[in-house]
């Protein structure tokens, strides 16, 4: 991001003055705000630009605008943009009752432009501020005119993008939440497994993030997803810190989630002690990163409806937790 985007405007709250997109529906509103920052001008602009020249006559302009169903064009001379002529200019000319004349006498020569790689939110701001209906889009590197953008283009692009994302999410949810209905059997479970690398802090937590996303897509209650993710994360971090690696296997059944975290060593010599809040064997440098409070297993127990921890020294540790899918009450805070 460029420096001028990195801070919200001072004074007013930026979320309260974003013009056309402010609205009471906060999730929708957030999504659009996100999109106008994420999408670039080049994502929304029209690329096949109809242009005119300074010597095109006003009467010809009318035919050009009508035939192409556009409301204005950049005016080009020798490969360079020298102005913009719009339907407003045309109407003014018509209203004045003056004789036909070349475009150059009526066009706007001080043209506001956008760079193709600017975020869409800048174009919205500029269209709003200047009151212009369209802005020519320039490629920052070559300085060449490569498109034109109007409010209509922006709205169309946003609607399209929202629709796509909405559909994608719908499809995920549909597939996920209907999976169990389509399967016939006494015992049905959806199982997925990720491996966890030992001692690799750069990737620590990835397996649990993946688990969280999958559970969300299955349409499981956010409170349940959160508890499953926290328990899995704590267990994953333990595997990263204390072992050479292991696996996380989640099995989603119609009424519960079972998570198994298995590793192949070094095991825990005193499981009861390890379960005590504050007990930790984490090394100094691991503690510096903020791990080693001795709260991980306690947290897991708190998040789970049932927890089983079996460990054999030099062999490995097996942790199994169950979370009831239908128990969405705020979980007890006691350990």
């Amino acid at each position: 991001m460029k420096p001028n985007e990195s801070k919200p405007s001072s004074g007013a709250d930026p979320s309260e003055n974003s013009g056309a997109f402010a609205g009471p529906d906060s999730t929708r509103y957030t999504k659009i705000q996100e999109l106008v920052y994420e999408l670039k001008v080049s994502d929304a602009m029209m690329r096949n630009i109809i242009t005119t020249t300074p010597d095109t006559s006003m009467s010809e302009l009318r035919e050009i605008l009508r035939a192409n169903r556009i409301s204005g064009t950049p005016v080009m001379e020798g490969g360079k943009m020298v102005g913009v002529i719009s339907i407003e200019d045309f109407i003014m000319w018509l209203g004045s009752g003056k004789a036909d004349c070349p475009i150059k006498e009526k066009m706007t020569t001080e043209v506001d432009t956008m760079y193709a790689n600017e975020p869409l939110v800048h174009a919205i701001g500029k269209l709003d501020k200047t009151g212009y209906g369209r802005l020519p889009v320039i490629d920052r590197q070559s300085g060449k005119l490569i498109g034109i953008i109007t409010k209509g283009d922006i709205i169309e692009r946003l609607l399209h993008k929202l629709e796509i994302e909405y559909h994608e999410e719908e499809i995920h949810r549909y597939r996920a939440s209907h999976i169990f209905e389509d399967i016939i059997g006494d015992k049905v479970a959806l199982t997925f497994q990720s491996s966890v690398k030992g001692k690799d802090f750069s990737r620590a937590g990835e397996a649990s993030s993946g688990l969280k996303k999958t559970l969300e897509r299955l349409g499981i209650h956010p409170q349940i997803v959160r508890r499953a993710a926290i328990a899995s994360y704590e267990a994953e971090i333990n595997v990263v810190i204390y072992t050479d690696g292991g696996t996380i296997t989640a099995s989603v059944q119609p009424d519960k989630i079972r998570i198994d975290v298995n590793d192949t060593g070094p095991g825990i010599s005193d499981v009861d002690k390890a379960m005590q809040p504050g007990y930790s064997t984490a090394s100094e440098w691991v503690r510096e990163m903020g791990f080693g409070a001795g709260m991980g297993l306690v947290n897991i127990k708190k998040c789970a409806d049932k927890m089983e921890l079996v460990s054999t020294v030099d062999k490995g540790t097996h942790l199994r937790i169950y979370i009831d899918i239908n128990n969405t009450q705020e979980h007890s805070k006691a350990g």
Partner: protein
Amino acid sequence: MKIVKLSRIIEQLNLDIRNAQDQVHREVKRGYTSDLLSDVLANGEEGDVWITLQIHPNIVAIAGMKGLSGIVLINGRQPQEETIARAREENIPIMVSEMTAFEFSGRLYAMLSGTKNDEGI
């Protein structure tokens, strides 16, 4: 306690926001100050601003899982590059303060408790 928008905290307490600038409308009613990750997982609450000196990418995972509204790095500590990259993906604002954890927490508390000095500092 009051509810204050993140944008107001950024402005009044001079935070340097590094990503997710579009998330400053988030509402905050509490802060949680801790450098122990498990502690935040256990005791942080949804919507909290997390005040910490940890700068590695795992803080983003924690904030994501707990639904925190943002992370404030104190003492001018700079987030690791990977931390910002993940924070972008997860849309979690990372903000930097030059204050100590003590000072920042105290001033945020004053803002949120609204007992005094809630408009100017």
